[in-house]
């Protein structure tokens, strides 16, 4: 699936819920099902700044694509992390760098999440793209 296709899929998923409760419950479920980051990567230098809750993220290079794993101590944040990983993980650096990620607005995440959280989301996306850029330069 391309990044756009996954975005479309997520947008449709969230459209099933017409109230915030459902959306958050879905987000929480996504957080709960997020594959855990390897404990050895949950170090201070992997913490993403800008989140009030803590987010750890690790990226790996595999066959020309980047695999992200992550964790958070807050479940809603973890849900957001899961969404981002679902969209961006397992793509090439160029695809990741160029992703517009318009689904965030479409599903009302930016609107419904408090500014500190959105900032965390923004920092998280930035970090994912920075990692992609780093791999691109290396390869």
């Amino acid at each position, binding site marked *: 699936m391309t990044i756009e296709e996954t975005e479309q899929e997520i947008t449709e998923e969230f459209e099933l819920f017409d109230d915030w409760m459902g959306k958050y419950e879905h987000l929480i479920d996504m957080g709960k099902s997020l594959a855990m980051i390897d404990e050895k990567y949950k170090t201070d230098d992997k913490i993403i700044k800008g989140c*009030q809750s*803590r987010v750890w993220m690790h990226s790996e290079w595999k066959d020309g694509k980047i695999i992200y794993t992550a964790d958070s101590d807050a*479940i*809603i944040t973890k849900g957001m992390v899961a969404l981002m990983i679902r969209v961006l993980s397992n793509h090439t650096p160029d695809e990741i760098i160029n992703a517009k990620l318009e689904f965030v607005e479409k599903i009302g995440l930016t609107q419904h999440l*408090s500014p500190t959280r959105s900032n965390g989301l923004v920092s998280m996306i930035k970090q994912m793209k920075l990692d992609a850029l780093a791999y691109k330069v290396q390869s």
Partner: protein
Amino acid sequence: MSDSKIIASEILPIQKIRADFPILSRKINGKTLIYFDNGATSQKPQVVIDAIDTYYKNQNANIHRGVHTLSQKITMAYENARTTIQKHLNAEHAHEIIFTKGTTDSINLVASSFGKKFISSGDEIIISAMEHHSNILPWQQLCEEKGAILKVVPINDEGELVMEEYKKLLNEKTRMVAITHISNVLGTINPVKEIIELAHAKNIPVLVDGAQAVPHTLANMQELDCDFYCFSAHKLFGPTGVGILYGKEKWLNAIPPYQVGGGTIKTVSFDKTEYADLPLKFEAGTPHIEGGIGLAAAINYVNEIGLDNIAAYEHELLAYATEALIKIEGLKIIGTAKNKASVISFIVEGLHPFDIGTILDQLGIAVRTGHHCTQPLMQCYNIQGTVRASFAFYNTKAEIDEFLKGLERAIKMLK
């Protein structure tokens, strides 16, 4: 206590009071706002908003400068505001009331000016484990600059200062004690009078951080006999960007100016400057004029209701909420001091405060989550943060009921 319980909610005309605060009727996420973040900042009554509005519409001019009518009138209004604050605090002189930007600014002023004159290498400064960063960092920085040592009064499990340890820390090297009146996280009301007496017995001055105290209790400068007292207008139903430093005349005369510039001088030449008398010595530049006037309006408003009534009513809210919260499974209240203001911090086992705050926000309920600018205190409890509900006199038991319902719902969703 049971007497004041019955009286408090009957004495305060809550619905009328709520109507004085325009923001309380607005909707958040489609729900009527329930504002339980009063510890961060309080809402403003119409009289304060009007005072600011009137200032810009009718009174705007610079103070202490012009001969023209507007300037003279507003200078008088500003100085009247100072007198209102002096009376409210029962300070001996109006010139002991210094307008600052807020609590943080007031503490920085004292740390800087007092520090320049009185702190040197090897001296000790005492703070406590429950201080806000604003009452830690200025002292920590001063200590680093001067080679002085920061000493910390520990707290017990309930979140009360361990007075025996405090007594042991006071010695001939101690130059300053800087302690919060009420903790912004734990709600603990510290025995400041006793703290001051103990320090004074050894000729040590005391600064009290009154940021969380002034909205809930009367702070009486002459009775407390404190040397410095700091607070912010915005937590006392007044405007943001303005605060107060009360300082005893003898100390304010003894320490050098903090910032210098227009307004702080008698005469200036390139060789020498003679500084103005108090309070202008500490008020460089054009001040937050409408802020000072707005603060006086807020104080008059609060005094009409009566801080005693406010304290009794808030105590009732605190008891009501505490009783219900402790029944929630897995919930732990952080800060269970005997003497407590209407601030409740708590954690729920297995849940992140941030998640709880997010769900409550969806329900129109504003609480604070996180470390509350008290990271060392969080380390004492070995936690990342708490959820904090802090009540003001315009809050109600019905709102607490809604909050409890919201909390149960959040817990169910998040578990």
